[in-house]
């Protein structure tokens, strides 16, 4: 008596399961298509960091969120240390990298670039009593230890131009901590990143050393990186950036993080 009743319900259950699987598969496929993975380093407050609730925040995160919104694309952050970002773009593990890239010929061979989203320079920072020293002279002294982010434009610059000992870190914050701990004499980093850090009252013992370093490879337009596997993204992201510039949204984001217009 029970058997004939159970059979249809079993079939029903199986059918439902099948439908659910198909639906999942379809939705999974479509989301897999639409989601753009954004590589971002999370080590430097307030430009890119993870807040107490575990969410990625900061200028780069805000800009890339606005871009994704303009592109009507779903973006997903992938936290990576800076040296891992270009390889990830090359593998198409991530499609966009909001990582303050200066455009260099070596990088152009490996990844695509968006239009600029702000402009910056590079400065040496160190003890405030050295603030009137000339960084060009300091970098030539082989007895000095210069801290730098691994694979950054600054790192490449040091390798080419400095006689000092280079100590590199995957994350800028680690280099910063090392400077505080006296593991190095100076730190070479993007000026805009340094500004906020130096402005903190607790860091008043540190300062810019001399003026920003005058070298084309260390200053100018800052771009996001794009995977070469998705060439169409370049135009889409550029259009989104243009819209953000024209609408003033980018300026609002800049005002949130910087004391002047850095675009």
């Amino acid at each position, binding site marked *: 008596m029970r058997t004939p009743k159970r059979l249809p319900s079993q079939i029903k259950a199986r059918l439902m399961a099948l439908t659910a699987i198909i639906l999942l598969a379809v939705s999974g496929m479509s989301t897999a298509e639409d989601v753009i993975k954004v590589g971002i380093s999370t080590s430097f407050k307030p430009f890119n960091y993870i807040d107490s609730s575990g969410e990625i925040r900061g200028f780069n995160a805000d800009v890339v969120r606005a871009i994704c919104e303009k592109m009507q694309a779903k973006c997903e952050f992938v936290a990576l240390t800076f040296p891992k970002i270009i390889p990830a773009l090359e593998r198409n593990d991530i499609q966009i990298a909001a990582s303050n890239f200066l455009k260099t010929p070596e990088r152009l061979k490996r990844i695509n670039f968006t239009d600029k989203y702000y402009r910056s320079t590079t400065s040496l920072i160190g003890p405030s009593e050295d603030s009137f020293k000339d960084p060009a002279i300091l970098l030539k002294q082989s007895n000095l230890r210069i801290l730098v982010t691994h694979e950054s434009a600054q790192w490449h610059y040091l390798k080419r131009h400095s006689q000092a000992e280079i100590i590199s870190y995957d994350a800028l914050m680690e280099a910063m901590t090392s400077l505080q701990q006296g593991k190095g004499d100076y730190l070479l980093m993007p000026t805009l990143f340094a500004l906020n850090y130096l*402005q903190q009252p607790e860091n008043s013992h540190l300062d*810019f050393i001399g003026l920003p370093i005058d070298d084309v490879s260390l200053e100018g337009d800052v771009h996001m990186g794009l995977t070469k596997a998705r060439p169409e993204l370049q135009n889409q992201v550029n259009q989104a950036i243009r819209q953000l510039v024209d609408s003033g949204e980018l300026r609002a984001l800049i005002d949130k993080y910087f*004391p002047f217009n850095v675009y």
Partner: protein
Amino acid sequence: MLNQDSHNPRPHIRKLLLRLIAMLVVFVISTLGVVTAIHNYSLQLIETSQKELLPAIHDHQRAALNLERLERMGDLVVYGGSITLIRKNALAAQVLAFQPSFNLSPDTQKTVRSAFELLREVRHTRQKLLSSNGERLSSIERQNLSQLEQTLRIRWGEYKQELFELQNKIISDATSLQTANMSQITSTNNLILVIASGGVSILLMLIFFIGYNLYKHLITPVIKASSALTALEQRSEHTPLTDARYQELHTINKAVNSLGETLAKLHDMATRDSLTGCVNRGYFLELAQQALSNAHRNKTAMALVMLDVDHFKKVNDQYGHSVGDDTLKLATKWIRAQLPDEGVIGRLGGEEFALILPGYDAVQAVKLSDKIRLMIANNSTDSGTIPAITVSLGVEVVKSATDEVDKLLSQADKALYQAKASGRNQVILFRPTEETTKPAPPVALKPALPDLKETVVHVTANGIISSVSAEDIKPPV
């Protein structure tokens, strides 16, 4: 003619039309091409302005705003009360002074950076003054620092003025960029307008030219040919058509011309006697009717004369028909020489002729007739190629408005008959009998024949009415 055509082939109308259309098409296409090219250039300008000029203008605006921020930061460094505030703003001013956004011009860069150098000095000085270490400074050191602070503040004031002017300059640069861009676009659009209107004017000229060509080479020849055809139809005079430029019209003109010639020839054949060239009987009657109508209408005189070669049958029999033909030809030639311009000679049959003499009254007509009679007699005697002949003539003139050609001719014929009967080689004017007309003086030199109801008058060349005996008439030799 065919050969001539093949040697000098004329272009066809199709060629004319094709050429005109080709001109039009080439012109329209080239004008469109030029306008499109300039339009594209204008679009390019707009795109350039959106892609390059607009960002440049925005760069200027940003630089101007950043200058303002630099001034504010500078103020806080120069007048700020706490070391933290001074330091914070001095750091920001340093970063800002070296921002690539000030790379607009070397001047801007230089001014901003030297302003920053001053701020750095101010920061240094004021930090020393305000720091906790400052309390350890001697009063002289403090005084010197305060003095330096004052000097630096004055210099900052000057720099601020400079920055302010720079800011104004950057803003006006942006404005002039915008103006230049706008005027470039406007001038391009004006150029489009000028070229388009120039194109339209040239197009109008071209259309005029095409119209002129069509008028000259197509319409005018067609109108001429059509009026020539109308003239042919109405049998009025027309000048032969000249050569046309294009084959088809040339053909039409040639056809019209040869049609005219053929028609004239046919008309001659239909109206003239081929031997003597005199008008034939039918056409003579037509012309006589016309002349009579004119005479009635204008109330002018008019005479009709019947003429017959005496004993012509004998000429034919004796000398053969060809001499007979020659005789008739020569006789008509001599008669024609005597006729007035508007006079007509018609051959009514065999050796019988008739004359229309518009404007001639009885005396003039009789006089002329006798002159003809004498001349034929003399000329034929002198000629040597034809036998000597004489002619008899019967004259009748229009007397009343009701006279008709048939009646006049038959009366002239009656007079001729009378002349023949009276012995030939004479002129006789028809005179109506008393029964038909009243006055008419019966001046008959010869007694009227008993069977005739009319009397006849015999007039000599002198106009003297006389009688000529039949014996005096030279018979054909």
